C-alpha cells in the first residue's frame, strides 16, 4: 500500500521525532510512505484568523504538492480537518482547484484513523510500557469524528496500562492563533487540562495533535512532577 505523508508545519519545524515515529509505523505495517517534496503547511493559521486569501495561497500549494490518488495520511487531526472540511469551500469559485480540493478532501486521513481503519494496527501486537492517558483534540473528535480509534490503539498495546482522563474532550486552550491572542485564557485552560492529566496518575499523556501537546507541555513544565507529553505516533512506535 502506498500513502502520501503530510508531516505538517509544526512537526516539520518543532517535532521531527513525531514524523520519524510515523515513518517507523508505516514501515512496520508494510506501507510505502512517500513524502512529497516541497510540502509546507495546510494554511490553518491564516484561515482560522480570517485571512482566506492568504490561506488559499498556501492551500493551492498543498494541492499542487499532494497530487494523485494515494491516501494522504497526517499525524494531525486539525490539519486533516482543514483539508477535509474547508479546502473545497475555499476554492468554490475556481472549478479546477475545487475539483482538486474535493479529491484531496476525499482521501485525507489522520494517522490513528488510518492505522485502525486501513491497517488494523490494533490487532497487530503493538507494545510499550508504563501508564498512559489520552487528550481528545477538538478538531479530531468533533470535525473528523475520530474519538475511538486512538483509544482502541492505546488499549491494544501490550505492556501499556491505559487510564481514561476526566473531561478528556474539553479543549486544552491551544486553538492555534488563540494561544497568541488570548494567552491568559489559553494558559488557564491548559492549567485545567494539566490538572485533569495529573489526576489520572499516568506517567504519560498522549494525543494526536502536536499543537495541543505543545500547549499541554508548556503547562506541564510548571508542575512539580511533570507528566511526560508524547504524540501518539511516538507512543505506538515505542518498541519498534
Amino acid at each position, binding site marked *: 500500500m502506498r500513502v502520501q505523508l503530510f508531516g505538517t508545519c509544526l512537526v516539520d*519545524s*518543532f*517535532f521531527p521525532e513525531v514524523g520519524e515515529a510515523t515513518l517507523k509505523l508505516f514501515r512496520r505495517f508494510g506501507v510505502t510512505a512517500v513524502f512529497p517534496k516541497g*510540502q509546507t503547511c495546510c494554511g490553518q493559521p*491564516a484561515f482560522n484568523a480570517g485571512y482566506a486569501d492568504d490561506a488559499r495561497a*498556501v492551500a493551492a*500549494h498543498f494541492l499542487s504538492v499532494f497530487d494523485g490518488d494515494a491516501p494522504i495520511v497526517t499525524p494531525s487531526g486539525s490539519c486533516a480537518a482543514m483539508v477535509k472540511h474547508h479546502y473545497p469551500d475555499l476554492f468554490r469559485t475556481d472549478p479546477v482547484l475545487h475539483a482538486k480540493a474535493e479529491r484531496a478532501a476525499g482521501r485525507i486521513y489522520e494517522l490513528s484513523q488510518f492505522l485502525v481503519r486501513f491497517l488494523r494496527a490494533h490487532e497487530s501486537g503493538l507494545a510499550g510500557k508504563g501508564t498512559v492517558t489520552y487528550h481528545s483534540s477538538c478538531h479530531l473528535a468533533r470535525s473528523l469524528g475520530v474519538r475511538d480509534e486512538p483509544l482502541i490503539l492505546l488499549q491494544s498495546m501490550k505492556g501499556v496500562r491505559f487510564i481514561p482522563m476526566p473531561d478528556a474532550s474539553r479543549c486544552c486552550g491551544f486553538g492555534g492563533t488563540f*494561544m497568541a491572542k488570548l494567552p491568559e485564557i489559553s494558559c488557564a485552560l491548559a492549567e485545567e487540562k494539566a490538572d485533569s492529566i495529573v489526576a489520572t496518575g499516568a506517567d504519560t499523556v498522549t494525543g494526536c495533535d502536536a499543537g495541543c501537546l505543545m500547549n499541554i507541555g508548556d503547562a506541564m513544565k510548571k508542575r512539580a512532577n511533570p507528566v511526560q507529553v508524547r504524540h501518539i505516533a511516538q507512543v505506538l512506535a515505542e518498541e519498534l
Partner: protein
Amino acid sequence: MSDVQTSLTFRANAARAIKDAPLRSAMRQAADTFGAKRADAFAPVADLEALRDKASTLRLQVLDRLQEYEEMFASRATRAGATVHRAKDADAAREIIAGILKDRSAKTVVKSKSMVSEEIHLNAHLEKAGMEVLETDLGEYIIQLVGETPSHIIVPAIHKNRRQVGRLFAEKLGVEYTEDPQVLTKIARRTIREKFLNADAGLSGANFAAAASGSLVLFTNEGNGRMVTTVPPLHIAILSLEKMIPSLADLPTFIRLLPRSATGQSITSYVSVITGTRKPGEATGAKELHIVMLDNGRAEILSGECREILKCIRCGACMNVCPVYRTVGGHSYGWTYPGPMGIVLTTLLTGMAKSHPLVDASTLCGACDEVCPVRIPLVDLFLKLREQRVREGFSKPMEKRGMRVFGKVAASPSLFSAGQFLSRTFWPLVRAFGGKDVAGRLPGPAKVPFHRRVP
C-alpha cells in the same frame, strides 16, 4: 448598572475574571452541572438528532418568510385583542413602552425576565421617566438589588454565592441574615408577592410567538412569568422579530428541546400560552395587552451571511459547554449576550467597531455546535466574522502583514526552509519579539527539520 459596552476590552476583562477565584469556581460549577444535567435529560430522548433537525428547519422556515409570519402574527394577535407595535430600534421600543405606561398613569411595573429588554436598556429608561420597575425573576431580582447586569442568560446571578445573596438581602431588605437558599427564596416570595398584587402593569418577554394564532409563549419555573402576565390589568410584552414559530402545533418540538438544553429539566414548571386579552366571560387574562416587536438590527442580519444566528432560542447550552465562557464568565463579553451565541449576536447587532475582539473569544473547539438544539453552525459563523473583521479593516496592521508573509512563505518550499533556518538561528530574538506569551511557550525549533530527515 453600567450600560456601556465593554467588548473592546475583552482581553483585559477576561484577564481580570481569571484572577477572580470565586467567580471561576461558580462558572465551573454552573458549566459542569448544566452540562451533566443536559446529557442526562437527553439520554432517554429517542432520536435527538431528528428533533434538532426539525427545530432547525422550523426556525429557518420562519426566517425565510419572516415578513409574512410577522404580518400573520400581528393580525391574529390583534384579532385576539392585543395591540401590536413594531419598533425599528431600541429608542423606538423604549418610547413606545414608556408612552403606553404614561398614558395609563402606570407607576409600578413588575417584570419577568427578558434579554431583549436588557439589550435596549429598558429599565433605566423607564426609571428615568419616573416609574418603578421591579424584576421578579429571583436571579434578576438579586442583580437588580446589587446593581449589576446578568452574567448568564438562564441563571443571571450565577456569579453570586449564597453568602453574598444573604448579605444583600439583609442589607437591602432589612431581614435577618441567612444563607439558606430555601429561606432566601421565601423572603423573595413574600417581598415580591405584594408587588405583583398591586402593580399597575406587567412587563414580560416571550420565548416564542406562534404566528398562526397570534400567541405568546413563556417558559418559566418560578411562577413570576404567570403573575406578571395575568395579575396586573395591563400587560406589555416585548420580543425580537426572530422569536416566531409557525404555529402552536410546532411548539412541542421546542418544549422537548429548550428546557433540556438550558437546565436539564424535561420541561419547565410552567409553559404559558397567551392569546390576546381577556375575552367576555373569562376571568383570566390582561384587560389590555400590548406586544412590541423589536427589530434593532435583525432584519439586516437576516440578509447577511450570518443569518443562522437568528435561529437561536436562547437556551444557554452553548455557554454551558464553552471552555472560554467557563473561564471568563458572562460579564467579560461586555454586552447583553455572552458566550458563543453572544460573540455572533453582539458583533452583528452592535457592529465590528464596538465588538471585534469578541470574534477571537473562541478556540474553535466546536463544543457549542455539538449542543445547539437548532443547529446553528457557530464555528462557521466565527470564521465568517473573522473574515469580515479583516475586510472591514479591524485587524492589527502587523497581523495583516504577518499573514501576508505567511501566505507567501508557506506557499514556497524554498522560502519555508529559509524561514525555518532564520527562526532557528534567531530564536532568542523571536522569543523577545513574540514575547513570553507566545514564543516563550513554544519549544525551540528543531536543529534538523523533518523534511531533511526523510530519505
